[in-house]
């Protein structure tokens, strides 16, 4: 599978080359937006967590009640395909760029951008419409003002592999 091989490469390829390869892949995905499998594949936790920096959030996600969702059920617009693809492309290029050429600018702790928070909140609402129809649920700015731990804040501040090992990269 394309994705599997890509994932291998994430780990051992030269950064600059990786960036352009992935950029190409992404453009490919956008061009072939109709390919359901590609969209789906790049939505999953497995895909997102192929980047090391996604490790902690993935860990927390897998232990949350939402573990059976895909990341992009929350993290990309779900209202229509065009919006979704545009957001994914922008975010995807950003992430890949940052993970390769722009690595020195990666923040020490990731935080959702305001745009992300808006998108996510919209997705909470669309899935949980029934609950919030039933009782006015919008007294705070966003759902996560109360549901602070959905799904990344389950007290998991470091990935489990971090808890096990000294970081060899750091060590050398």
């Amino acid at each position, binding site marked *: 599978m394309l994705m599997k091989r890509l994932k291998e490469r994430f780990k051992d390829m030269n950064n600059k080359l990786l960036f352009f390869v992935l950029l190409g892949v992404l453009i490919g995905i956008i061009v072939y937006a109709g390919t359901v499998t590609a969209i789906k594949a790049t939505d999953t936790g497995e895909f997102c967590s192929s980047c090391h920096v996604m490790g902690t959030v993935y860990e927390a996600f897998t232990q949350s009640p939402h573990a059976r969702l895909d990341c992009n059920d929350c993290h990309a617009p779900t209202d229509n395909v065009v919006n979704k693809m545009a957001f994914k492309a922008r975010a995807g290029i950003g992430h890949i760029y940052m993970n390769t050429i722009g690595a020195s600018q990666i923040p020490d702790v990731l935080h959702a951008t305001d745009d992300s928070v808006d998108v996510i909140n919209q997705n909470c609402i669309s899935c949980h419409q*029934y*609950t919030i*129809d*039933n*009782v*006015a*649920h*919008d*007294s*705070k700015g966003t759902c996560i003002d*109360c*549901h*602070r*731990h959905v799904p990344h*804040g*389950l*007290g998991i501040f470091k990935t489990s592999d971090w808890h096990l090992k000294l970081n060899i990269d750091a060590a050398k």
Partner: protein
Amino acid sequence: EDLTVDETEPLTDLSPDEYVNTAFKDAFPIHYESYLRNMGNGRPPVSKFIPDYEPYLPILFAGFPFEQEYNTTRGHPYAVEDVLSIARIGDRSIGSCMTCKSSTVTPLLKEFGDDYWSANFRGDIVPRMEELAAVGASEELGEFGHVSIGCSDCHDPVTMELRITRPSLTHALARQGIDVTEATRNEMRTYVCAQCHVEYYFEPELEKVRFPWDYGTKPEEMLHYFETTAIEEGFDYDYIHAVSGAPILKAQHPEYEMWSYGSHGRAEVSCADCHMPFERRDDRRKISSHFWASPLENIETSCRTCHSDKTERYLIDRVGDIQERHLEAVHEAQDLTVEAHYFVNRMITAGAPDDKIEQAQQYVREGQWYTDIIAAENSDGFHNPQGSMDTLRMASDASNNAIKLAIEELSNLNVDLGELRTEIENVKEAVLNEEDPFEKHTHATNNFFPAQN
């Protein structure tokens, strides 16, 4: 049907002036059902004067109706019943005492206008309240539950929007520069409670219920208000203390005030977030709980919505820790303040100079304020652990200042301090050992410590 509170479209067929709780039952059956839980086990309230709670309160309140009866709380539907039967109500009690008890207050205010506040409680207010209560009674809510604190106190009966019905809050916030009509929904989820769960006093002109917040809501800021603005406007004190003769400010349930600068208040966690969490009733339907009680009964829905990384056990233990440390400090501050009152009493009987007595009384006034405002707060410190402890520290300091001054003056007068201390122990014993809570206060003064009021 959409129950969003933001829309101002009519949602019910009720009259805009509806004030009877049972009238809301048909439109909101599951809210009404939730409200019924406030009836609890139906047992009467318990005196706070028993040794397990705060045994020396009859001394601290000596000279004020509070010395006679002061109980643990019950659910909102009991508020009218409890205010009617409390021994604190006397022949000169006023309408203002109904303000935080009954949903008839809105119609009463409309009818009486500004005369409501100082109208005679038993002579004018209760009879009219009973007339208004002639409709809508229901066995499940007891004699007065249908007109006790209820739907119309917090909701517009037509739109069900949250609303403020007590002008005291609107007025107090306005004096802080806050326009309550501009409040966000999150703020309203606190303000509805802040209509009642606040420190208050009766301003002397019309005896309106007022909140002392011009300089802020911290105890020291409220004291500053009482020492300046309130005095300028003619309010000096609530009572002259029977033991020390000090001009005392009675402090009442400052839940809102302590919350406002505590960990959760600063984080904008509202009263309703903890005390009215969403609950599932009637299968799948969710509502805001209308059973106002300790959130420790509902940790899952209340605390763990936000603190889902913590276990129920952990949260109970944390609250327990905070409250235990807090209560120990409350009791120590109360002991010191009691002592201060008697030292000042002895200054008077021994003939200390007037200016020294006045100075000592001023310290006692301060010490009692800081002690009482924290003892009267109902979360046992949880709403604001650091702030409450800071206030108790100030309480000790002020009461100690009174005692220090007294020791100095009494020594100059060759008063036997050993005897004084023994007599204080005797008084405390007598109050503690008296079985009848209504009689406890009679032991606060005696031949050795004659009444000063």
